[in-house]
């Protein structure tokens, strides 16, 4: 269908009198966040990354004695905190880096810069999107884990500490996602974000315990955002630790570093 064949009305004077004005910030942020969430849920690769892979790992490693976790955990009790950490990384880091990289490439960020939505508003919308998807992931993972026999051993403080760990992890991962997406070409961002995801899936304490690594390597891996998040969540949800100080501090430091770098080096075009 081209051209006038599909023109039903001619644009006429009398309909275009200027009456400009920005909508309230809350409405803009909500609209943009809903828009981004719909795009994410429609995108097969993104869904694979954020939902299917974590659930497959949860099911496969808990049902099949592929590896021995040791440490007196049941398989599902060991796996669930690690898979939650993976889900957070996949949404806040990998998926966000790829989506933002392509938004930058397609001029979407540039075009948004000409709308009444400010940059701060856009960042708020992206944050809401990530948190919304994480909540969806958490609900699904908890339901599947419960069905597989998950029984967390957690102190009451976990109700506050688990969201705190996830929020700090999200902040740290988001900063790195935007740093990648805002400095590299879209294809390079895609490759780097996926590579980092796979490597940290292996050595981030997600399905393989960091205790299996030599001591020096273990300290290093637990100092990475994924290692800190998985270890912290496992301490709280499987070991009954009230407050994993080291991991909380590690994630907070990463959050400050990554967001500072992203704010400094992010290029909108």
């Amino acid at each position: 269908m081209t051209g006038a064949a599909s023109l039903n009305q001619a644009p006429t004077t009398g309909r275009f009198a200027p009456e400009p004005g920005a909508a309230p910030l809350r409405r803009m942020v909500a609209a943009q966040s809903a828009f981004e969430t719909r795009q994410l849920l429609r995108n097969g690769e993104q869904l694979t990354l954020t939902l299917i892979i974590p659930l497959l790992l949860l099911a496969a490693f808990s049902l099949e004695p592929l590896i021995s976790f040791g440490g007196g955990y049941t398989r599902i009790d060991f796996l669930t905190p690690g898979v939650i950490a993976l889900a957070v990384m996949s949404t806040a880091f990998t998926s966000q880096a790829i989506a933002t990289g392509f938004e930058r490439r397609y001029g979407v960020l540039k075009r948004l810069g000409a709308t009444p939505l400010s940059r701060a508003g856009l960042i708020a919308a992206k944050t809401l999107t990530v948190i919304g998807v994480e909540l969806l992931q958490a609900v699904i993972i908890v339901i599947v884990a419960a069905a597989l026999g998950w029984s967390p051993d957690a102190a009451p403080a976990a109700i506050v500490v688990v969201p705190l760990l996830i929020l700090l992890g999200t902040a740290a991962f988001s900063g790195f996602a935007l740093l990648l997406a805002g400095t590299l070409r879209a294809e390079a961002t895609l490759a780097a974000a996926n590579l980092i995801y796979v490597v940290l899936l292996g050595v981030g304490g997600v399905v393989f315990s960091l205790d299996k690594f030599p001591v020096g390597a273990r300290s290093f891996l637990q100092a990475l955002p994924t290692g800190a998040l998985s270890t912290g969540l496992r301490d709280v949800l499987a070991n009954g630790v009230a407050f994993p100080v080291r991991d909380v501090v590690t994630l907070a430091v990463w959050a400050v570093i990554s967001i500072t770098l992203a704010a400094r080096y992010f290029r909108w075009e």
Partner: protein
Amino acid sequence: MVKRYGPVTAIDGLTLTARRGEVTAILGPNGAGKTTAIEVCEGYRAADSGTVRVLGLDPARDAAALRPRVGVMLQAGGIPPAVPAGEYLRTLSRFHKKPHDTAWLLDIVGLSGSAKIPYKRLSGGQQQRLSLAAAVLGRPELVFLDEPTAGMDPQARHATWDLVTALKGDGVGVILTTHFMDEAERLADHVIIIDHGRAVADGAPGKLTGSAGQLRFRAVAGLDIESLLAALPADSAAKESPAGHYLIEVPSGVIEPALLAAVTAWCADRGVLPSSLQIESRTLEDVFLELTGRELRS
């Protein structure tokens, strides 16, 4: 304004004024600095020197105040490829206080049958029209259109011209870039021709082209221009450029019937049949050629 990219000076001391409620066309060949000039006005890049005011505001410093009042159509892209046209407009409409009805606007730009089609599957012209709709969605006071009809088929171009005319009728200012002379001549109240980052001409299209009458024809190359001039009224000018293309101009303005008769009689004396004989006034293309020595669309 002046804008440099490394050693390249994209905008070299350009001064332009677009009045409120008028259509201003920035005309020039590719690489002349049209997009750079418009993007400085849109606040996307800061000029290295000079002063830019849009609706009385500094586009860089007062961006937050200016953005809601201005509509922007980028030269390309800006829309996520997988998003359906209608959903894109509905989302953007939530950013504005009193947006147009998106279904009506889709209809106006001829996309009502394509509302559910993802952006990437629209034709180039349809993508342009969606981008145009997005630019006027928020009832702006001023619209920037960067090559709005590039890639459009003729009907879509005419529909776009109708929309620009309607905007102007309602007092919306339009600043557009183009390398189509007919577009500038038809739409613009004010034309700025730029080349190598400078304005080489500035004024109403009629004023720029003047009223000089022209007679053009084609014939075999190498006819004797001197003898042709001798057969014409005293104030006429004639030249052959390029070979086989003849141009006769009357600076006083009017091509009289007697001049046409003189030209055809002169041709008949030589057994030459003129073809594509046209009588017209000067175009912006002629103005550009005269000022720069180059074709606009080269």
